[in-house]
Every structure is written in C-alpha cells, then in structure tokens.
C-alpha cells in the first residue's frame, strides 16, 4: 500500500511538471504564434500610452525577453529551491515552494493560493454534504418507489437539475431570493472568519446541479443492487427492510458513487469557477480566472497546478478508499 501511494505521488509530480510546461507554453508560445510581441505583453501591465522606457523596464522585470525555456527553468527552480523578490526597497525571500509573485498584485502566488483554498474548500464541502445527502436519499427513495409519482417527479427535477448550470440558477436565485424577496442574505464570503451560512445560496445552487446527477446515479445503482442475490439473502434472513436497503443495498451502490464523488470534489477543489464567479466569492477559481483575464502567468500557473494537484490527490484517495470499501479489491 505504501509503495502504491509513493508510486502514485511520484507520478503526480511528473504530471504536474507536464501540466506546468503545457500551461507555460499556452501562455507564451500560443500568443507569440498569434503575433503578440513581448512589447504587447509588457503593454498589458503598463498604464495608458506606455513609452518605450516603461515597456523595456517591464520586460526586464518580468523577464519577457528571456528565451522561454530559460523562463520556465527559472520558474521550476524557484519551486524547488526558492527565490528572492525585489520590491524596489528590499529583497524579499521566497522560500521553496516559491511559485513566484503575481505580476498584478505583487503577492506571492503561494500565499494567495493558501488564502483562497479554504474558501473554495468551504464552497465545495458545504455543497458536497448537501448534494450527497439530498442526491443519495432521493435516489434511494426513487429506486424503491420505482415507477411511482414520486419517482417520476424526482427524476424530472433531477433532469432539470443536471440541465441547469449554476450561472443560471445562481443568477436567478440572486435576483429573486436575495434581491427581490430578501429571503436569504447577500452572499458575502471572503474567508474562514466569515459566517459560513453566507454560502447557503451557492451551496444550494451547486448542490442542486450535483444532487440531480447523484440522484440519477444512486437510483440506477440501487435498482441494480436491489436485484442482487445477496439482497434476497438479506431479506431471507428476516432483516428489516431498512437494514436491507441501507446496510446491504446502499452500501454496495455507494462504491461507484464514491468514485464519481471523489473526482467531482477534486475538480471543485481546484476552483468552483462558475459558482465563484456567479456569487462573487474569492476562491481559487476566481483567482485563476482573474489570472487568465489579466495575463498574470504566475497566478495562472499556480492555480492550474493546484487544481491538477487536487484532482490527482482525489484520484489517489478514491483508489485507496476503493480498497477500504470493497474487500475484493483489497485482496486482489
């Protein structure tokens, strides 16, 4: 098991290297191929009508004229051994893993990521609790009441749920629930110090999207599981229907759901971009989006790497959990 985890983590490092190189290339090579010069790039960081002196100074500061492999090399080197940063008045130490400084805010990217991660974590976890509870229980009830009005209604709502993106439900609920009827407070969340229930609306909207998916998934899984021989055995033992459904049926149906859940959560942790944008929550997704919009390469790279890391870790955790949940996997 330990060897397995170590192997996977090493693979993750390799993957992150590749991702960083690809992101780096997209940021530098693609625009350059499209005719963007280093002057143009520098111009994005200067004010109105930048003169040649300003452009040259910016290019020099950010190293835009260095060959791209050199720039990439510097980036990777900083992550491994750290770097120093010149603020003009002093040289600041940026210890490894130094992911550089934002071109825009002059803050260490690492600090920004550390600052934003709990916010995204709160969004993702809160919504995850909701969608798993709602999705799985609706899915189970639907499967047990297959063909009834309840089942049909639940599945119709679920279909609507998976088809309604957060920016739609989010904007609609902001307009009506918050601003028109004032049923919920405005969404203001800037860090762990803030009241987490400010996130209620984002949670609901995000959970609505995912719960729909999980309800369908659970229903399908339960329908299959409840036809298994071992369910019949459980009933033959005289177990109560609740025990049969929850302990025997649901337990077996949860394995595939767990896999999907791990990946979904990993993806979300990398930045719930649409949710964060819709509700103006400063999480990792917003950080990445701002980075892209403002050509802030260190931030884009950092956010991409963190998102990739979360996905890789989520995969790893799912794989490990698989063994925990399903003894057949553990023993093979």
């Amino acid at each position, binding site marked *: 098991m330990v060897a397995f985890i170590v192997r996977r983590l090493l693979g993750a490092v390799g993957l992150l290297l590749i991702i960083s190189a690809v992101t780096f290339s997209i940021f530098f090579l693609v625009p350059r191929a499209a005719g963007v010069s280093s002057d143009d790039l520098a111009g994005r960081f200067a004010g109105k009508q930048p003169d040649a002196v300003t452009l040259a100074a910016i290019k020099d500061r950010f190293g835009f004229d260095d060959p791209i492999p050199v720039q990439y090399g510097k980036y990777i080197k900083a992550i491994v051994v750290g770097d120093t940063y010149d603020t003009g008045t002093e040289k600041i130490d940026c210890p490894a893993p130094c992911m550089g400084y934002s071109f825009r805010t002059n803050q260490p990217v690492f600090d920004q990521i550390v600052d934003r991660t709990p916010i995204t974590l709160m969004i993702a976890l809160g919504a995850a609790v909701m969608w798993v509870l709602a999705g799985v229980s609706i899915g189970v009830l639907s499967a047990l009441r297959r063909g009834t009005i309840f089942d049909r209604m639940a599945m119709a709502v679920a279909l609507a749920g998976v088809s309604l993106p957060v920016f739609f439900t989010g904007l609609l609920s902001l307009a009506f629930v918050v601003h028109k009827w004032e049923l919920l407070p405005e969404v203001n969340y800037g860090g762990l110090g803030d009241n987490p229930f400010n996130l209620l609306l984002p949670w609901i909207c995000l959970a609505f999207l995912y719960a729909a998916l999980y309800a369908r998934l659970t229903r399908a899984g339960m329908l299959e599981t409840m036809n298994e021989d071992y369910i019949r055995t459980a009933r033959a*033992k005289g177990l*109560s229907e609740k025990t049969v459904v929850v302990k025997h049926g649901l337990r077996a149906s949860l394995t595939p759901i767990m896999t999907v859940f791990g990946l979904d959560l990993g993806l979300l942790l990398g930045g719930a971009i649409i949710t964060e944008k819709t509700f103006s929550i400063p999480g990792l997704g917003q950080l990445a989006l701002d980075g892209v919009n403002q050509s802030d390469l260190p931030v884009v790279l950092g956010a991409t790497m963190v998102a990739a890391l979360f996905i890789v870790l989520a995969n790893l955790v799912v794989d490990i959990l698989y063994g925990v949940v399903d003894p057949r996997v553990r*023993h093979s």
Partner: protein
Amino acid sequence: MADKRPAELIDGPGEQKDGAAAGAPSAFLEVRDLKIHFPTDDGLVKSVDGLSFQLERGRTLGIVGESGSGKSVTSLGILGLHNRRNARVSGQIWLDGAELVGASADDVRRLRGRKMAMIFQDPLSAMHPFYTVGHQIIEAYRVHNDVSKQVARKHAIDMLGKVGIPKPQQRVDDFPHQFSGGMRQRAMIAMALSCDPELLIADEPTTALDVTVQAQILDLIRDLQQEFNSAIIMITHDLGVVAELSDDILVMYAGRCAEYAAVEDAFHRPLHPYTWGLLGSMPRLDRERSERLMPIKGTPPSLINVPDGCAFNPRCAYKDLTDGKSIAERPELRELEPGHRAACHIPLEKRREIWNDEIAPKL
C-alpha cells in the same frame, strides 16, 4: 429406503372448495392452491398456478423441474420474498398453524430466518461481498436473538465448525470471496441454520459444486436435518439429489404440479410422461454414457397466455393417445394410487404399459 408416501392426502386444486374455510391443517407446512402471478407489459406471467402440497417435520420434499417451471418462485413465495407490488400471490400457505399469504409483511419477516430459512443456489452472489462471512451470520442470528455481539460471534464460529469449516475462529473474519466454492456453500448453510429453522428450503444447494463436494454437502444437510428435525424442501433439477435425500417428490411443469408422489413411487412407477423424460435425462453413474441420456425434446412453454389443454402437450411423445383431449382440456391432478398423483390425459393402464415396456428398460 423405506416406503414413504405423503403423510396426508391432500385435496387437489380441482377438488378444493374453499381454501380459507378449510381452517388450519394439521400438517407442519401445507400449501393450498398457491398462485403466484406477475403482471408484465406483455401479459400476466403465471409462474405458479395452483400448487398444493404438504410437509411434516423431519421429512424432505424434493421439488424438481426444468428452469422456469416455478420451483424457485414457489420457495420464495413460501418465504414471502416476492415484492407485493409486482407479484400477485393467492392461495394459502400454512406454517405450523399460521397462514402466511394473508399475514402482514412484518409478521412474515419475523418468521424468516428463524422459523424458515433458505439456502441459496450460488453462494458467491448470494452473500454480500462487502461483509465478512462471520458478520453475515452474526447479523442473521442477532436479528432474531437478543444477544451481544460476542455471544453471536461465538455462535457463528460454532455454526461454521458444525458445517465442517476448518479453523472457524479464523475463517469467521474472512470475506465470501476468500472461501472456496464448497466452503462458501457450507457457510451459507451455517447462516441459514443459525437460528435453528424448522423449515429449511434448499434451492439447488449443490449445483455449482463438483461431485465430491456435492456429496459432502448433501451429507451435511441430512445430518443437520437429523439433528434439528427440520422439514426440508429441496429444490433441484437433479433427480439424483432428490433420490438421495427426499421422502416425497413433486414434479413441476409450467407452474403446475405434473406428478406428486413418494420418491419410491415416482422413480419406479412414474405416471407422467414428463417424469419419464426427466428420468430419461438423468445421468447415472452405473450406465454407459451413450445409452443414458434421452433429453426431452422442445423447450418449456411461455408462462404468458398459457393455452388451454395440457401444458406438456407440445413436447409429449404420447399426445396422440389422448384422443385430442390434451389440446382441449387441462388434465387434473388426480390421485391414481394411494399417495400418488399425476396430471395426464393418457389412460392409466396405457401409461403403466408404456412405462413398463418402453421407458423403464432403457433407463
């Protein structure tokens, strides 16, 4: 083997006047005119259509028939395992003086596992893959016995030992997939017997096993029956198993009883062409391979929209001997000799003649 016959004569479906009014029978298990129908989009599937039999403690009834003949549906019906929403169950099932068809789901559930238990066909799929064997036995025991986990665990180890699993205190924590097929079947039996059931239904308990293990399992069931004095229903398509274990035999065809008799009678004086076919297709170790197998031609009929007449008619080699009655009219189950019933239009004498002259010599 002693001359055994059904302990009590029972009323065939045709003679049954009013099941409910007949009152509690004296037999331990009595099934009266059991019908289990499944409405589907294509029509009503009559999986079991008017089945009656009875069974005493300490005795074994073998139910035989091809797949789809209604054997397993019957056994699940007795246990009350059909989903009431998609199965229509009618008739009566009396177990030790209590009627089960009309009883509440909860009452039947309380009997399941304790008073009546079942050994399923394929233990790999019939045991939950995520729980240890011990856990599953403990669970079965504790649902009916208010004991601590430790006590239940000790009981589970005892049960595993009793069914012949070596080192039960270690194997109790293994998962089903860690057991060999035979050991798994033993574990399944241990689970079924954990609450000393008075009625044990074994659904093809040896099908998946090789011959040596098969014999061991059958020995085990027999031994356990002697110990607990249980009534056993042995469901199988293997007449060999029936011959070895059963007192009575009930041959099912298309959801109905074709022949119901003591084992002795059924094997030596069968009165239904279908039973002849089954006997003919039975592998026997004392015969040459080339001679022995005479499979029944054709396939079992669809259970939807079963036509009038004898369900076996299309496959019956002797249907010409009925003057067309087998097409027009469904044959009633009649008691032709004491304790020996069969449902066939062919004149009785003719049947005896065919058996003696044509079938028996070939077996």
